[in-house]
């Protein structure tokens, strides 16, 4: 079998393996909904101010809420298959449409954050490991330690105080300056300008994480036997570090990057609500305040799917880096 065919089989296999996870998440979602006090009809009735018990019973029948739990689960799963996530009465819109509208800003924030955190994390970890115990290593290590301990929302607020309110370098909130009606290149520049602070805030913690991981991984690899072999071959230290150690040291970092995607989305709820970034996280924050459970569950589901997708990409990337993974 050719390499390409093997790899597409591998992707297919990983996709199929993701199915039970997605199903499990849908089931968890359903039961969380059941756990909540009151159902959609109670919410509707609450909205309307007053409703007779007869009318509510009628509504329950209409929505199928009087059916046994297992039937409701079946209906729920069927709805999920067609990406029907229910209806948000608060926004008066289908949940699916709401969350899809907010997907792009979150994706933008995540991609820029992952790039920044992983990229700089690798570089900083590399610098720290190759200057072990001198001032560069110490500065980087202390920076990583402190960043690792700082709550995201506080970093965001402090950045607003310093860079928006005092220095006026960056806008405090939003994704773009809607009132200016920018178009084309100007609009991209405007969005990028708004993107800086949320990205920095969200990536700080992960930057610290990957820096520490990369440093430890480099040090571990440097003590391996194959490094001694490389020295015995008469290679320069430069080549040993950048060709032999680096590629092996990257493996755990890439694995970790995949594992952390889920927590990154969690972090984006906080960062988006601090900077009023109009993504899924901000939507979740709004849903939380308006007690719009249906919407919250929809966001939860979509973000889980997003993690599954990104993990698949990471796995594929990993299979290129580590030949020991059997893609066949």
């Amino acid at each position, binding site marked *: 079998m050719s390499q390409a065919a093997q790899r597409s089989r591998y992707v297919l296999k990983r996709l199929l393996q993701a199915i039970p996870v997605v199903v499990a998440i849908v089931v968890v979602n359903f039961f969380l909904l059941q756990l909540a006090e009151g159902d959609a009809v109670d919410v509707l009735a609450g909205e309307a101010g007053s409703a007779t018990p007869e009318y509510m019973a009628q509504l329950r029948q209409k929505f199928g809420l009087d059916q046994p739990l297992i039937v409701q689960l079946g209906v729920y799963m069927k709805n999920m298959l067609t990406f029907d996530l229910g209806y948000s009465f608060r926004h008066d819109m289908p949940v699916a449409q709401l969350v899809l509208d907010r997907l792009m800003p979150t994706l933008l924030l995540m991609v820029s954050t992952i790039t920044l955190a992983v990229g700089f994390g690798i570089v900083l970890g590399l610098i720290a490991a190759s200057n072990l115990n001198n001032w560069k290593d110490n500065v980087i290590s202390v920076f990583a330690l402190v960043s690792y301990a700082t709550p995201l929302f506080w970093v965001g607020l402090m950045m607003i105080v310093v860079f928006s309110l005092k220095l006026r370098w960056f806008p405090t909130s939003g994704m773009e300056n809607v009132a200016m009606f920018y178009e084309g290149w100007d609009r991209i520049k405007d969005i990028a300008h708004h993107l800086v602070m949320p990205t920095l805030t969200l990536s700080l913690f992960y930057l610290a994480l990957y820096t520490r991981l990369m440093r430890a991984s480099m040090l571990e690899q440097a003590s391996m036997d194959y490094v001694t072999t490389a020295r015995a071959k008469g290679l320069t230290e430069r080549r040993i570090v950048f060709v032999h150690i680096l590629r092996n040291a990257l493996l755990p970092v890439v694995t970790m990057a995949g594992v952390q995607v889920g927590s990154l989305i969690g972090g984006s709820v*906080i960062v988006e609500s601090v900077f009023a970034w109009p993504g899924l996280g901000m939507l979740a*924050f709004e849903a*939380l305040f308006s007690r719009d459970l249906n919407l919250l569950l929809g966001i939860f589901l979509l973000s889980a799917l997003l993690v599954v997708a990104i993990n698949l990409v990471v796995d594929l990337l990993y299979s290129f880096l580590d030949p020991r993974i059997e893609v066949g």
Partner: protein
Amino acid sequence: MAFWRRFCRNRSALIGLVILGFVILIAASAGLLFPEDPFKLVGRAMSPPGENGFLFGSDTLGRDVAAGMAHGARVSLLIGLLATSVAVTLGVLLGALAGYFGGWIDDVLMRLTEMFQTIPSFIFAILIVAIMKPSINSVILAIAVVSWPAVARLVRGEFMSMRNREFVQACHIIGMSDWRIMVREILPNCLSPIIVTGSLMVATAILIESGLAFLGLGDPNIISWGFQIGAGRTVLRSAWWVCTFPGIAIMLTVLAINLVGEGLNDALNPRLRERT
């Protein structure tokens, strides 16, 4: 004790221990230092730090920020410890069973932890608290629910490698029961990574708790650092101190716990230390 000597050789771990000791002291004596209810309005609103008898200033309603911080230390440490205890207990139990027996228990557990790795844990925690109504119990439960899989995976791995060690096989051959092998022979040998992970988890738990409280999902009757920051963000322009000082408190506490945890790691696994 050799362990204590190794721990003390690590300067940053000692610094962490001192900071942590200070935070614990403040938490323990919060009732003495600030006998009043921290929610009580005790003076002029929006007083900057050092004025009107407020060490760290007062907030929009005239509550003492310093008093809130002292009482908040109790909440943070309490929730961190309790949530971690629940998560570690659950994780050790399930991880040990899966790692020791393998088979279907292991399959189920691995699928479960895979699911937990996939779902965004913070959003899951938000959902649990939102559905159960915010209270100290729901917050502890939510943090424990999203934290145990990491412990389970760790313990599973340890048990799996231990179960094939020759000394464990020797126990089988003299007819020892599975339960006794797990508790008396294997568990003591994987305590150090569990202790290290547990201590680092306390730090993570404090961060999650502050995040939840910041979003307004804390127990409404209890003051906490996250709540103070969340309440103060509307007045960021005019009263920066309301957000700033509780944030520093979180940072220092989490940093101190991380330093102690790393110190424990180095002291409990001296071989790892020598390599670098």
